[in-house]
C-alpha cells in the first residue's frame, strides 16, 4: 500500500506539472487559432468577392496583325471588349467561341492564335472566382495546400470555355499557382515556427515570426476589391525581406549583422514604397490608397534598389553564417549551414531581380526569380525550426553537466562551457555573499563585462553563492540557462557544504584526538603517581613488616610473626594488583623500547600462542601507541572470549599506512558495540585518522586497523 500511495503522489505531482505546461500550450494554441481564423476570414472575404472577370491592368496592344482572318477578327473583338473597359463575362466568351467556329481551324492554328493573343496580352488577366470551388474550406484547406484561390478563363483548343487554375494574379507581379502555394506554405510555416518558439522559449515572444506570417499571407489581400485591403496586400509583403534577414541573423553576435539587418529593412522600405508610384486605377479593380505618382521608372528604380539591398543583406548574412560556423558547436552546424544556403539562394535571386528591374524588364523578377525569393523566405522558418530542434538535441548535455558536477573530479568550468556551448562561459563564486570572484580571486562586476556578455547571479536561498558570465544570447533560452544555473548552484552549494563539513570533521577529529591525548596523559600521570607513591610506600611497608616479623620471631612471638607475615603477603598482593593496573595505564616499555618490544611483552603474557610479525621502523610515536593499543585490546579479547588455539599479530608499514592485524581462530562473535573496549579502540584509531574493522565469524576474528603515518 505504501508503494501505491507513493505512486499516486508522484502522479499527482506530474499532473500538476502538466497543468502548468498545458496552460502555455493552450495559450499558444489560442494564438495560433486567432492567426488561422484571420487567414480564413481573409480567404473567405476574397472568396466572397463578386463573380466575373476583373481586368487589372491594361496594356494597349497596337501590334496585333490584322490579317483579316477569323482569328484576327476574334482578337479584335477581345481588344474591343478590353477597350470598353468592362469585365468580360463567361457569356461573352461562349457566345463568340462556339464549337462550330473552333472546328474550322486546325489545332495548330488555334494554338498559335492563343499563343499570340496571350503573349501579347501578357499582363491582361481574365480572372474570375471559380464556380467549381464551392466552399472556402477547400480553398484554404491546409491538406490541399496549393488548391488555387482563383481561376483564369481561357480558350481551349476545342473552343470550349475552360476555367484554368489561376495563372496570374491581378497586380503587377505574376504569381503562378504554385507560387501562391508557396506563399501559403511560407505563411503557415511562419505560424508554426512562431508557436514552436513560443512554447520552447517562453522568454522570447515570436513577434517577428508572426509578422512574417502576416506579411506573406497578406499577399492574398490584393485579390479582393477593397482598396484598403489591396494596399495592405501590396505593401505588407515588402516586410518579408526584413523579417527573413532579422530571423537569419538574429542569433549571431557578428558586428556585420547590424549592417545586414539595416540593408534588409531599407530594402523592405523601398519595396513598400514602390506600389505608391503606380496608379493602377481600373474599372472594377482596387487601387493602392494614397498612390500619387504614376511613374514606371520610379517604380522600377525602387524595386531595383530594394532587390539590390536585399541581395546585399543576404550576402552579409551568408558571410556571417560562415564566420559563425567556427564558433558553433557541432550540433548547431546543421541550422547554420542551412541558413547560409538559404541566404545565398536569396542573395542570388534578389541580385538577379535587381539586374532585371534595372534593365527595364521585370518579367524575370516578377517570375522565376520572385519564386526563388519566395522559396528562400519559406525556408527561413525551416532554419528556425532546425535551430529549435538542435537546441533540443543539446539538452542531454545538461544531464551530462549534472553528472559531471556530481562526480568529485568534475571541474565546473569546462562542464558548464560544454553545456552552454559557450567556451567563454565563466563560473564565479562568492565567499561573502556580496562580491563575485573569478578563479583567480578577482572581483567581477557586471558593468565591467563586454556588451555581449551577461551575468546571471546564483543564489542558495537568499544567499548569493556565485554567478555565471555567459553570452547574452542564452537569455533567449531561459530553460537551458535555468538548468545550467541550477546545476552550478547545486555544485557550488555542495562544494561549500563539503568545505564546511570537512572543516567541522577536522575539528571533531582534532577534539577527539585531544580527548584521547588528555586521557592518555591522565593515565600516565596516575601511573606515575602510583609508582612514586603507593608502590614505593607499600614496598617500604612490606620491608618494615618483614623486619617486624623477624624481630617477633627473635622474641619467640610466633603468633605475632605469623600475623606480620600474612600482612606482608597482603602487601605483596596489593603490589601485584597495582602493578597490573598501572601497566595497563601506561605501557612504559613502548616509550622505552618501541612498538616491537612492547608488543613482544604483550605476546609473552598472552595465554594463547601468538605468532608475531612486527615491522614498524620509522613509525611516529603517536601512531605506535595507537597500534600498541590495537594489539593490546585484540589480545585481551582473544584471552577473554575467543577460546582460540592460535593467534597472530601482524604489523607492517605499507604505502605510508600502518596496518595492524590481530587475528585468531576462535569462536568469533566479536563486534564493535557501544561502550565496549573495541569502541574505545575505534575512537582512538579514528582520532589518528585511520579506521578499524572487525571481521568476526565461525572461523575466528580478525581485527584490522589501518592508520596513516604522515
Amino acid at each position, binding site marked *: 500500500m505504501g508503494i501505491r500511495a507513493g505512486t499516486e503522489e508522484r502522479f499527482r505531482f506530474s499532473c500538476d506539472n502538466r497543468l502548468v505546461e498545458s496552460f502555455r500550450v493552450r495559450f499558444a494554441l489560442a494564438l495560433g487559432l486567432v492567426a488561422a481564423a484571420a487567414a480564413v476570414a481573409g480567404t473567405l472575404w476574397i472568396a466572397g468577392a463578386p463573380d466575373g472577370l476583373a481586368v487589372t491592368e491594361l496594356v494597349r496592344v497596337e501590334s496585333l496583325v490584322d490579317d483579316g482572318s477569323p482569328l484576327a477578327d476574334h482578337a479584335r473583338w477581345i481588344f474591343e471588349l478590353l477597350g470598353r473597359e468592362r469585365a468580360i463575362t463567361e457569356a461573352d466568351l461562349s457566345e463568340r467561341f462556339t464549337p462550330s467556329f473552333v472546328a474550322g481551324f486546325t489545332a495548330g492554328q488555334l494554338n498559335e492564335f492563343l499563343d499570340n493573343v496571350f503573349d501579347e496580352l501578357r499582363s491582361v488577366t481574365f480572372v474570375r472566382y471559380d464556380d467549381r470551388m464551392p466552399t472556402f474550406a477547400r480553398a484554404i484547406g491546409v491538406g490541399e495546400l496549393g488548391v488555387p484561390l482563383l481561376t483564369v478563363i481561357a480558350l481551349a483548343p476545342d473552343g470550349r470555355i475552360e476555367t484554368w487554375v489561376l495563372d496570374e494574379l491581378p497586380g503587377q507581379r505574376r504569381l503562378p499557382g504554385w507560387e501562391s502555394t508557396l506563399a501559403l506554405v511560407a505563411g503557415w510555416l511562419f505560424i508554426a515556427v512562431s508557436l514552436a518558439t513560443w512554447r520552447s522559449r517562453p522568454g522570447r515572444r515570436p513577434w517577428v515570426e508572426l509578422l512574417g506570417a502576416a506579411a506573406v499571407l497578406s499577399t492574398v489581400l490584393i485579390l479582393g476589391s477593397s482598396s484598403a485591403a489591396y494596399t495592405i496586400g501590396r505593401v505588407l509583403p515588402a516586410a518579408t525581406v526584413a523579417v527573413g534577414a532579422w530571423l537569419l541573423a538574429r542569433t549571431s553576435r557578428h558586428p556585420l549583422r547590424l549592417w545586414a539587418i539595416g540593408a534588409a529593412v531599407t530594402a523592405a522600405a523601398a519595396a513598400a514604397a514602390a506600389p505608391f508610384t503606380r496608379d493602377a486605377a481600373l474599372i472594377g479593380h482596387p487601387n493602392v490608397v494614397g498612390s500619387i505618382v504614376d511613374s514606371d521608372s520610379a517604380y522600377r528604380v525602387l524595386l531595383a534598389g530594394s532587390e539590390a539591398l536585399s541581395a546585399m543583406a543576404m550576402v552579409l548574412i551568408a558571410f556571417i553564417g560562415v564566420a559563425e560556423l567556427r564558433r558553433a558547436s557541432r550540433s548547431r552546424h546543421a541550422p547554420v549551414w542551412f541558413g547560409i544556403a538559404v541566404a545565398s539562394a536569396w542573395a542570388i535571386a534578389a541580385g538577379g531581380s535587381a539586374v532585371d528591374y534595372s534593365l527595364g524588364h521585370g518579367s524575370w523578377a516578377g517570375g522565376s526569380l520572385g519564386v526563388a525569393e519566395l522559396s528562400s523566405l519559406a525556408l527561413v522558418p525551416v532554419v528556425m525550426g532546425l535551430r529549435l530542434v538542435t537546441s533540443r538535441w543539446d539538452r542531454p548535455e545538461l544531464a551530462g553537466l549534472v553528472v559531471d558536477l556530481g562526480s568529485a573530479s568534475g571541474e565546473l568550468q569546462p562542464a558548464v562551457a560544454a553545456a552552454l556551448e559557450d567556451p567563454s562561459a565563466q563560473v564565479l563564486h562568492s565567499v561573502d555573499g556580496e562580491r563575485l570572484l573569478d578563479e583567480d580571486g578577482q572581483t567581477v562586476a557586471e558593468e565591467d563585462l563586454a556588451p555581449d556578455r551577461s551575468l546571471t547571479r546564483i543564489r542558495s536561498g537568499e544567499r548569493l553563492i556565485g554567478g555565471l558570465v555567459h553570452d547574452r544570447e542564452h537569455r533567449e533560452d531561459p530553460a537551458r540557462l535555468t538548468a545550467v544555473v541550477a546545476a552550478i548552484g547545486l555544485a557550488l552549494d555542495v562544494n561549500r557544504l563539503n568545505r564546511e563539513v570537512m572543516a567541522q570533521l577536522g575539528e571533531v577529529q582534532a577534539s577527539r584526538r585531544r580527548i584521547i591525548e588528555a586521557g592518555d596523559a591522565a593515565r600516565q600521570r596516575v601511573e606515575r603517581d602510583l609508582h612514586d607513591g603507593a608502590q*614505593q610506600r607499600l614496598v617500604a611497608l612490606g620491608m618494615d613488616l*618483614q623486619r617486624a616479623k623477624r624481630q617477633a620471631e627473635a622474641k619467640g612471638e610466633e603468633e605475632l610473626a605469623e600475623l606480620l607475615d600474612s600482612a606482608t603477603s597482603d602487601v605483596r598482593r596489593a603490589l601485584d594488583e597495582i602493578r597490573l593496573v598501572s601497566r595497563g595505564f601506561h605501557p612504559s616499555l613502548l616509550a622505552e623500547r618501541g612498538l616491537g618490544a612492547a608488543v613482544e611483552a604483550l605476546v609473552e603474557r598472552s*595465554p594463547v600462542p601468538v605468532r608475531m610479525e612486527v615491522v614498524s621502523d620509522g613509525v611516529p610515536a603517536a601512531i605506535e601507541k595507537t597500534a600498541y593499543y590495537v594489539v593490546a585490546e585484540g589480545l585481551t579479547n582473544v584471552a577473554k572470549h575467543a577460546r582460540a588455539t592460535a593467534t597472530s599479530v601482524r604489523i607492517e608499514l605499507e604505502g605510508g599506512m600502518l596496518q595492524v592485524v590481530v587475528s585468531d581462530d576462535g569462536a568469533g562473535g566479536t563486534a564493535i558495540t557501544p561502550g565496549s573496549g573495541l569502541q574505545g579502540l575505534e575512537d582512538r584509531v579514528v582520532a589518528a585518522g585511520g579506521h578499524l574493522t572487525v571481521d568476526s565469524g565461525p572461523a575466528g576474528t580478525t581485527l584490522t586497523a589501518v592508520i596513516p603515518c604522515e
Partner: protein
Amino acid sequence: MRVILVDDSALVRDGLAKVLADEGIEVAATFPDADGVLAAVQQLEPDVLVVDIRMPPNFQTEGLELALEVRREVAGIGILVLSQHIETRYAVELISEGAAGVGYLLKDRVTNIDAFLDALNRVASGGSAIDPTVVSMLIGRPGRLGVLDRLTDREREVLALMAEGHSNAGIADRLIVNQRTAETHVSNILMKLDLPPDSAVDRRVSAVVMWLRSQEA
C-alpha cells in the same frame, strides 16, 4: 659486605638500608639517581650495587643503563637491578654481556628478606639472580613447549631454578633433594637442550635464558 643503594624513593632507600643493617650489611652510600654513582663505586668499591631501574630524570631505564655502565667500568662488582615491572627484555639486555654478578628482581622481592638476601649474596659472589617472573614467562610461554615437552616436570622445575641463577647446591636445597640428584637433573637437562655441560652458574644462566628466548612459538 658493602652495598651502594640507588633509588629515587627515600622510603625504599631507608627501608632497604634498615633491612641490610639488620643483617650486618654495610650501606656505603645511597643515591637518589645515577649522578655520581660510578665515581662512588670506583671510590668505595662496594661488593654490590643495588639500583632501581626507573629513576630521574626521565623515569625510564636509567638504572639499567647505569648498571651496564658500571659493569663495563668496574670488574667483579655485583649489580642487582630492581624494578616495579618485570620485562624479559631487560633481563636479556642485562645479561647480554654475561650473567656473572648480575641480578634482576622485582622490587617486591625485598619484602621477602630471606630470598632477597640470598639473591644479594649470589650476585655478590659472582653468581646470578633472575626473577622467577622472567623465568616463568620464558618457560611458560604458550606454544613454546616443543623441546621442553621432553623434560619431566621435575626437570622443568630444575630448569627454572637454573635460569634464576641457583647453584646445584641451591637447587638441591630448594627441591629438598641431595646435591647429586640435583646435579643429575642439571646434566640431563643440559643434554636434552643441547647445551654445553658447564658448571659455572652464571654461564649456565645466560645459556638457559638465551636458549629459552630463542625458542620462538
